[in-house]
């Protein structure tokens, strides 16, 4: 027992949760921003369908999302078999699988926050940049990207908090394996199944609350600071 009352095994659970969530958010960030930009700025047939597909994990029962992931990324699934053959990567029953499940569940929230902030970037500023000699890419990097930074930060934090809480898709796809996929929510669930597990459950629940609250407050602070008081998450 350490000062905080957490055992070494419990610290390992917290560390695993943080690693899974961080990797899920960092890997998803560029994809989420690209999708947000396309939906905010481009008009093309199938745009609504793409938007709906991104939002699907938000409304689907998480267990269904996990099952779909199993079909695609499982050892015999088309993507899973390919990943294993070509790169030797296995996702099921591994912490990387938990990160994938968390990423899919976090994606809609991240895209939403980023899209809203991209939409608030005045296109007139982009045309001004173009007349000053900027290529479309340079205008994107110097105008759209920095002005949508609050949305990127908000999206990343929301995605991180969502990943920390991911349960249904993770347990379905990556299972509940100690040291690999047993993140905070799964550990709490496991603790509830065991006689005399209430104390551990309480400690882990408090950690969850502190981490989630911390993430929200951090993002609020980052967003306000980067937007000079012009934007907020909460």
């Amino acid at each position, binding site marked *: 027992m350490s000062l905080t009352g957490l055992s070494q095994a419990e610290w390992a659970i917290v560390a695993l949760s943080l690693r899974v969530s961080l990797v899920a958010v960092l890997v998803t960030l560029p994809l989420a921003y690209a999708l947000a930009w396309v939906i905010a700025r481009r008009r093309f047939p199938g745009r609504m369908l793409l938007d709906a597909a991104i939002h699907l994990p938000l409304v689907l029962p998480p267990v269904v999302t996990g099952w779909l992931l199993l079909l695609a990324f499982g050892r015999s699934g088309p993507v899973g078999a390919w990943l294993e053959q070509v790169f030797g990567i296995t996702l099921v029953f591994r912490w990387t699988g938990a990160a994938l499940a968390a990423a899919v569940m976090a994606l809609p929230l991240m895209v939403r926050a980023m899209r809203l902030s991209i939409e608030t970037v005045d296109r007139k500023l982009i045309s001004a940049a*173009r007349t000053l000699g900027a290529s479309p890419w340079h205008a994107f990097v110097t*105008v759209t990207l920095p002005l949508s930074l609050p949305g990127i930060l908000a999206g990343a934090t929301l995605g991180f908090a969502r990943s920390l809480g991911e349960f249904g898709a993770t347990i379905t796809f990556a299972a509940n394996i100690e040291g690999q996929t047993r993140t905070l929510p799964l550990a709490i669930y496991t603790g509830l199944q065991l006689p005399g597990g209430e104390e551990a459950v309480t400690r882990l629940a408090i950690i969850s609350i502190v981490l989630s609250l911390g993430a929200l407050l951090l993002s609020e602070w980052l967003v306000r600071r980067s937007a000079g008081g012009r934007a907020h998450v909460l």
Partner: protein
Amino acid sequence: MSFEVALSLALGEHRVALDFASDAKLTALVGPSGAGKTSVLNAIAGLARPERGRIVAGGAVLFDSAAGVDLAPEHRRAGYVFQDARLFPHRRVAANLAYGERLARPEERWITLAEVVELLDIGHLLARWPGTLSGGEVRRVAIGRALLAAPRFLLLDEPFASLDAARAEGLALLVERIRDNLAVPILLVSHGRAEVERLAGRVVDMAPPPQG
């Protein structure tokens, strides 16, 4: 020739047709609101595509539908001063001024930051954020940013709009100074003939939009 513009432009329901050539140092485009003046500036800057026509400005063919020429905005080198200025809110004045200067080729630059700062009297504003500037200051910085991008020609959209009489007069003197001291042709858009007559070597009238 400073400007040779012959174009047909779709503007919502109706069509704007304009044909003029001017070798004045400052040409004014005058017409009531809704006549499509800003649309013409956008077409010259490459932000809107005319249905057909030919645009030559500052000695360069920017658009020629018959010859298949249509330069991208970043290759037209238009010193476009928008009516709403469009300063970048996330960059201080100094960084706004530097934006186009950095993108311009060194051999094409024809004015330095020091000269622009002196001409426009904006030295005390360099460390400020655009959001803290007054209307007149915003417009002076926008002019400076356009000049530093090494433009072939200047496009000024309603430069005196929504300024009080004293500030408008100050800005008119400034435009006069640019006209007389810098070798850059200017196309200025205005809704009032009176405010441009003293400045312009040539005034082009645009017809009012069709009624109903």
